[in-house]
């Protein structure tokens, strides 16, 4: 036998872990602290009102990321596949939101107002029901048509299938609805840009209604999902399938049905995220799911993929970092994604399975 095969490898691979990694960590911490000191105490560019605004924006976008990330994580936890088309499922939800409000706008009620202004709560509820329904259905059929036959295939194959599905859905939406950018017309009380006004440091900081709505609803949905997964029989089945499909089947769990339902739930959550996107950001077009999809995937990995609280934490964390990071470090806003990704790399260097990931996650993949 040849030498390299037998040689002990501990020294070389541990050189990095023992020496370089702490060094790198120290360097990064020193750099960040230095920049923070410069920005906060030397330059003092931003007053408290700016920090508040940044934080609000970060939390809102983080809430949406979290909701989409949950969808990734749910599917990943069970099938170990990256559902690349998840962002497109969200896009369908956003389109549903647009169409619902367009339709409700044309309905006149007796007071002469249109339906969505007269009954805003009902209108938003309809938008959510339709959006979540459409997205859940598309998630369900996506699994049934494109992923189920590939369950036994090598691990990367469903990923490519998902990429194909993502390209297909994007182009289908473009061809169906034209590539035009659409603006969702909210009910008047939820007009974008209106909100509670707080006076900080002599400047009006607006906490938008749509933003608070988005944030609160994200967390309600996440809490609901957590209860479903932890307390119901469906949740138990999902966890069992995630742990071991064969054993779960032997215990009488219908694996196919459980996976289908997982896709239903993850699709519905993406749909909810899409509707919120429509209500808060307003802009809907066929490519709208792509960037949030990638970001949410990042968030899911950041939190430890397959871990529900991890995805929530990762989403919020990513949103806040994207929003606060450039200002806090005094770097161009153009580079916010660089900051987010560098942070991701650093976190994964020190915690290879994400913020809340199980230590042994690497054994699964």
């Amino acid at each position, binding site marked *: 036998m040849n030498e390299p095969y037998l*040689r002990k490898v501990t020294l070389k691979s541990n050189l*990095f872990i023992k020496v370089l990694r702490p060094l790198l960590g120290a360097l990064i911490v020193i750099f960040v602290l230095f920049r923070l000191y410069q920005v906060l105490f030397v330059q003092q560019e931003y007053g408290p009102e700016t920090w508040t605004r940044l934080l609000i924006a970060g939390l809102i976008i983080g809430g949406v990321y979290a909701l989409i990330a949950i969808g990734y994580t749910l599917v*990943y936890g069970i099938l170990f596949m990256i559902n690349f088309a998840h962002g497109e499922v969200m896009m369908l939800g956003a389109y549903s939101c647009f169409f619902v409000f367009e339709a409700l706008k044309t309905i006149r009620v007796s007071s002469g107002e249109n339906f969505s202004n007269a009954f805003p709560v009902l209108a938003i509820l309809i938008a959510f029901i339709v959006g979540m329904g459409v997205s859940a259905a598309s998630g369900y059929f996506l699994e049934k048509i494109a992923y189920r036959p590939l369950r*036994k295939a090598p691990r*990367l194959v469903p990923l490519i299938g998902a990429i194909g599905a993502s390209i297909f859905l994007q182009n289908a939406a473009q*061809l169906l609805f034209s590539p035009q950018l659409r603006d969702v017309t909210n009910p008047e009380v939820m007009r974008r840009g209106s909100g509670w006004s707080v006076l900080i440091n002599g400047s009006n900081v607006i906490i938008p209604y749509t933003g608070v709505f988005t944030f609160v609803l994200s967390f309600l949905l996440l809490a609901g999902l957590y209860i479903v997964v932890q307390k119901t029989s469906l949740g138990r089945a999902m966890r069992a399938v995630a742990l071991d499909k064969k054993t779960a089947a032997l215990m009488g769990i219908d694996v196919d049905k459980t996976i289908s339902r997982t896709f239903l739930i993850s699709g519905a959550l993406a749909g909810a995220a899409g509707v919120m996107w429509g209500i808060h950001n307003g802009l809907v077009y066929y490519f709208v799911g792509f960037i949030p999809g990638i970001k949410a995937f990042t968030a899911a990995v950041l939190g430890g993929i397959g871990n529900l609280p991890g995805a929530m934490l990762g989403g919020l964390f990513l949103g806040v970092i994207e929003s606060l990071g450039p200002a806090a470090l005094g770097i161009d806003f153009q580079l916010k994604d660089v900051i987010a990704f560098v942070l991701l790399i650093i976190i994964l260097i020190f915690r290879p399975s994400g913020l809340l990931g199980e230590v042994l996650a690497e054994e699964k993949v």
Partner: protein
Amino acid sequence: MKTPITRSARTGIIFGIIHVFLVLIGFNTLVGTLLARLSGAQLINALPAPGFMITYSLLLALWAGFTAARKGEANSLPVSLAHGAVAGVASGALAFCFSLVISWFLVNRVDFRQYLAVLSFDFIRITLFNLAPLSGSLATAAVFATGGALGGLVNGVFGLKEVKAALGKVSAAFTGLRHRLNSNLRGKYRPVFLAAGVILLAAVVILLPLKWGSYWNYVTGTVGLYVVLGLGLNIIVGLSGQLVLGYIAFFAIGAYTMALLNSPVPHNLMWGFWPALLLGVPLAALAGVLLGLPLMRLRGDYLAIVTLGFGEIIRILLKSDILTDLTGGPRGIQNISGPTLFGRTFNSDIQFMYLIAAAVLLAAFVYNRLQYSRAGRAWLSIREDETVARATGVNTTRYKLLALALGAAFAGLAGAIFASRNQFTGPEEHSLMASINVLSLIIVGGMGNIPGTILGAFALKGLPEILREFANYRLLTFGALLVVMMLSRPNGMIPSKRPKYRIPKETADDTPREARHDG
């Protein structure tokens, strides 16, 4: 209630839904237009004549009927016909309702294009075969029913004993021919055939670029560069099993090295092609090592997302304001000069084609040697189980870094040639979608082998060019084909054979020392 007939009705309804979807994206007129163009007929107002639309509907219904009959496992002609007819009627009923709905827009002059982009009045009219709403809808239903029945009939005819026997004979004859050919190839004539093949290939590689015009030279050149990229990524993903999603970053490093050293703006260094190439390739490899070093502990999707992030970081930095003076920012770099060899400057598509062919051959050679080397075996063991590989004494860190460095070097090579050929490179050339394309091509083709990579590159970069006839439906078709390819061949078009260990006879009782690969 799951009798075979209701199942056929369900198939019909599914096809009806497909029909509705295709009409709403305007795919029916596209097919009609293509049919019209094939037969040389004139378009009326940019739309095909009703006859072609009827042909399209008939073809779709035929497919529905055929599928239904085949799924229903009809074993006789009448049963098959019945299945097809049921499917046809079911899809026809759906198509009928849908036609009524869209004709409502026509009758009431409602312009719905604000929401569904294709629904112009002309389009609705031609979808109804230029007939009145009710008769048009009825005609649609009739066409679907007829088509379905025909589909069933076709399936039934194929199911007939006589036809089956005839088909069997034909296929047996083919198999016999193939076996004879194979045995000849394997036998004593093997060297002769191989030599003939190599000469033929050489002739093709030398002669074709001269013959087939700049367009196909360009397309094949792109495919060639993606073969190099695919082989490089195959070392990382296919052999050593590390999922890298930001592979295009290394390509960008090669391209930008070439561009910055070899263009008048922004630095006017003009080193020439070869020095830039010789610098770009090691730089890309170095980037691979530097990226890999801190990430050795990451596996699977964690590695994927980190490398995805790396690719995005490179792209955003290239276009960012802070590096504009260095890299040209979002404008990219124009006027990159081509290579000079023996005093001649490469500028035509033909010369570049030869250069790319040389690069592909080099990459394939290196890949082939690597695959069966000790490094190749080490990678394989890492791919199968990293912990076990480490336990058996494979220096996993070293071999994983080696894979990253080599893969990155391949990408650097492709990137440098790519930039020089296009005379331009910019940050948006190196977006995430490009990485995904490369990953898709190695998986579609079949991971870990050279022919698969070549075929995959054709599928991923050649297919969209061939699909140009589909105009705006190009990517839609492409996405659908990607899914279909994965569903029908989950292991890729040419699956890799696992190397078999042949135990030499004289040492059969001992542990095999030397392993031979048969692949």
